[in-house]
């Protein structure tokens, strides 16, 4: 849960708070806590994780994400302004960033997404087949973990039989980041690198169709007129996995928690599946669980605070997407909200490269699930919990008649 301790005075007389977004809490509690913080403080200094700035409102968060010359990606980890490692392309700024990022755009385009949709529908139904007759499941383990992983592996042309491997690696890495077992996270990253090293070797020996096979494509790609070196290839592959899997899992968890606990809205999408695309946008807006950070490239006065070169700035996207200045009735889910200019996929040059694929995974999941299991409810009297940082439910027991 977000806990707020004594308000003191930070740099330049700005408010100083201890707001810990790394703690677990009841589902949606992080978002709700920031609904209050945002109204009190457009920006504040946090003395946790080495000390950093926090910006809370839609316009300021979006503008910062669009201005990498001030708000740099040299680090995006708030507790580590000077990482000894680099995530490619995550930690790169323009113009270097664009050289790598453009390699991904066409690979995750709407056309590619259309190509993998029928396989995604089959995969969704296979997972549902496994538990539908039980009348219950843990949604996270039985569906939210494996389904997007399977679709992702198919989309980049890796064997979908490896789904359980990737699920376990992603659990270990994000568990490590939230402090559960950092060593397991480090081991998982090393195992992933070994996996991709072997896969790249196989593709070198036996290249696949460039149009569908991302590893063959990356091997053939050039940056500044040179092939990408092995170290960077492995880095990019691991970043792709870390960016693409934990996120879609958590979003599915939030969506199905919302629908399990709001039967009227659930009936609306069952009765009118054409509502699902706008429902997806709204559920993304309401539960924008990614908290990006940026590093100041130079001194700047921002949201009334004197921010200094080298300091970190945390910008929880949920604080932007639930800002009543930007969204009417921001604290309420309106499945037919239109327009909906949320930034759950971020904004600016680092906007989620997999957004089109993620949206399609959510669409397929929500369409196929509700054809098979239109009525369901929480299968527990315990409060559903979410972890902190990149928030998400760890367990979501559902049951149906």
């Amino acid at each position, binding site marked *: 849960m977000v806990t707020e301790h004594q308000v003191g005075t930070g740099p330049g007389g700005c408010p100083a708070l201890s707001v810990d977004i790394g703690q677990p809490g009841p589902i949606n509690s992080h978002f709700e806590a920031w609904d209050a913080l945002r109204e009190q403080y457009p920006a504040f200094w946090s003395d946790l994780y080495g000390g950093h700035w926090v910006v809370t409102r839609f316009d300021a968060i*979006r503008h910062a994400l*669009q201005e990498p010359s001030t708000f740099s990606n040299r680090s995006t980890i708030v507790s580590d302004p000077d990482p000894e490692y680099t995530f490619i392309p995550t930690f790169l700024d323009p113009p270097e960033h664009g050289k790598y990022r*453009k390699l991904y*755009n*066409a690979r*995750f*385009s*709407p*056309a590619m997404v259309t190509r993998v949709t029928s396989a995604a529908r089959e995969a969704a139904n296979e997972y549902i087949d496994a538990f539908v007759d039980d009348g219950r499941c843990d949604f996270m383990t039985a569906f939210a973990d494996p389904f997007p992983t399977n679709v992702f592996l198919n989309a980049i042309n890796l064997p979908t039989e490896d789904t359980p491997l990737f699920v376990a690696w992603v659990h270990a890495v994000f568990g490590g980041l939230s402090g559960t077992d950092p060593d397991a996270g480090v081991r998982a990253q090393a195992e992933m690198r070994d996996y991709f090293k072997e896969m790249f070797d196989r593709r070198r020996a036996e290249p696949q169709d460039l149009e569908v096979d991302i590893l063959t494509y990356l091997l053939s790609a050039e940056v500044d007129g040179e092939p990408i070196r092995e170290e960077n290839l492995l880095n990019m592959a691991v970043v792709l996995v870390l960016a693409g899997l934990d996120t879609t899992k958590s979003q599915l968890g939030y969506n199905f928690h919302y629908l399990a606990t709001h039967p009227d809205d659930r009936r609306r999408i069952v009765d009118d599946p054409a509502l699902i*695309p706008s429902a997806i946008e709204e559920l993304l807006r309401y539960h924008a669980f990614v908290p990006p950070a940026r590093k100041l490239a130079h001194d700047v006065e921002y949201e009334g605070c004197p921010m200094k070169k080298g300091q970190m700035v945390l910008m929880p996207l949920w604080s932007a997407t639930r800002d009543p200045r930007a969204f009417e009735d921001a604290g309420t889910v309106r499945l037919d909200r*239109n*327009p*909906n*200019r*949320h*930034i759950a*996929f971020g*904004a*600016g*040059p680092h*906007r989620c490269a997999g*957004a*089109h694929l993620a949206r399609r995974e959510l669409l397929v999941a929500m369409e196929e699930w509700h054809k098979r299991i239109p009525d369901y409810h929480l299968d527990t009297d315990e409060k559903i919990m979410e972890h902190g940082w990149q928030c998400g439910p760890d367990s979501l027991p559902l049951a149906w008649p």
Partner: protein
Amino acid sequence: MRIAVDADLCSGQGRCYSVSPDLFTPDDEGFVEQRGTEFEVPAGLEDQARLAVASCPEGAISLTEGS
């Protein structure tokens, strides 16, 4: 009515061609093909134009009313 897509602000979020498919189309990279252009909104598509402006997460699309 004229509509313009700012090439620097557009990040390829893709909302414009999803909500206003008669006005905007995706390119091979998922950006809007009309990125960096300004053009006259065809008669009858004014509502799609306004919806695209209001739906762009980047604030990259702008309208000039009149004419």
